[in-house]
């Protein structure tokens, strides 16, 4: 839960500039960054976790940097798990945000510009409020996706109780130990959380559509 909340919050902050850039930049090679962002969608979690582990290991670039900066390694720590989880859930933040930004009527941005709004004010006063459903979707999807994470966590975080053990791994451990009752209880919690999260996304989207329908009578 702690990991999922941290990942969702950090990815919302990190995802917004990336999504904004992907939505509005005219750079020709933009598709390369789009591919990198979408990579975790098709990559097996163990592959992603393996490379993350190599990068965070004592001989990896990230591990070396972390050791120099903080005096301890990154692999099998909460920080390392957080970083790997953020990369793993990146498309779940960027895609809804990008779709939401692209969905903002361009006429509104032009109207804001001629009314004297700087690019930053256009973002804050037009794009952001009209992208609220996308932001909610990004947060809840990242939260839910991280909650159900298994492969990456096992590779990068190990299974340290209280530090890197997530709900999915705890369920797996319980099944291995033939404690089906406990596994069932945790699985049910995950199922309910996932349902509530998706219900929130669809509810917010529906409410926003009703509230912010542009004037289209002409």
């Amino acid at each position, binding site marked *: 839960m702690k990991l999922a909340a941290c990942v969702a919050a950090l990815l919302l902050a990190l995802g917004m500039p990336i999504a904004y850039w992907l939505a*509005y*930049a*005219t750079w020709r090679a933009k598709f390369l960054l789009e591919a990198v962002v979408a990579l975790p969608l098709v990559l097996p979690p163990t592959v992603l976790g393996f490379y993350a582990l190599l990068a965070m290991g004592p001989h990896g670039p990230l591990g070396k940097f972390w050791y120099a900066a903080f005096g301890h390694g990154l692999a099998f720590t909460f920080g390392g798990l957080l970083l790997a989880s953020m990369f793993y859930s990146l498309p779940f933040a960027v895609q809804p945000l990008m779709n939401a930004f692209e969905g903002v*009527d*361009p*006429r*509104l*941005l*032009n*109207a*804001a*510009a*001629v*009314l*004297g*709004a*700087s*690019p930053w*004010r*256009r973002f804050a*006063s*037009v794009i952001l*409020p*009209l992208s609220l459903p996308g932001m909610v979707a990004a947060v809840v999807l990242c939260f839910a996706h991280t909650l159900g994470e298994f492969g990456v966590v096992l590779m990068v975080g190990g299974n340290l109780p209280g530090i890197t053990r997530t709900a999915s791994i705890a369920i797996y451990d319980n099944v291995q130990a033939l404690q089906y009752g406990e596994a069932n209880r945790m699985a049910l919690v995950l199922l309910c959380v996932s349902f509530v999260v998706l219900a929130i996304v669809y509810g917010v989207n529906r409410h926003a559509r009703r*509230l*912010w*329908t*542009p*004037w289209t*009578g*002409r």
Partner: protein
Amino acid sequence: MARVRKARAAAHRRASLPPLAPPFVLDVTLEIPAGISILLGPSGAGKSTLLDCIAGLVRPDVGCVRVGQDVWFDSQKSIDLPVHQRRVGYVFQSLALFPHLSVEQNIVYGIAQRAPQERSQRLEEVLQAFGIADLRGRKPAEISGGEAQRVELARALVTDPQVLLLDEPMSGLDEELKAGIIADLRAWRTAKNIPILYVTHSKSEAQALGDRRIVMRAGKVIDQPSAPMPG
């Protein structure tokens, strides 16, 4: 007085703004005095692109755009004032009220930086002038087409623009509503002595509003009452 000299535009997209027009070649030399100038021409003549060049939504390849003593664009001197720094009022062909803001919030959007007292005074002024005071708390989705049109005009005019660009602002409205808005515009033209460029296909609107006519075809001005400025 607004001047557009040899504005040749290939409709370049601004980096942070979406494109308004497809690639298009415009070659125009034009001088627009204070008062209402009606811009006529068939669809695709370049009328909207010309307005976008003046507003800064489209960057011309070469040429200059001057309003009064201010230079907004000059390709030779590499001057290109960003859209938000040009004091322009622009009512687009299709309505663009912010759907998440109330009528009042829409209108004060362009004067948000002004002192609160001045802001509320100017708001009341345009709300009364355009007869939309009772709509102030409503969202755009809750008002009619004619009301939305008035709100758009009020929002464009409240900023005290140096030049007003109106791109078919009354298409799709019935004659009664048009007459009311025409009366509003005429009153505003008398009160504020600024150049107003008004694109329309309607002869009745042109006759009711126009101080002068400019005719465009295929990206060029083919008829205007006074000779273009030299050079």
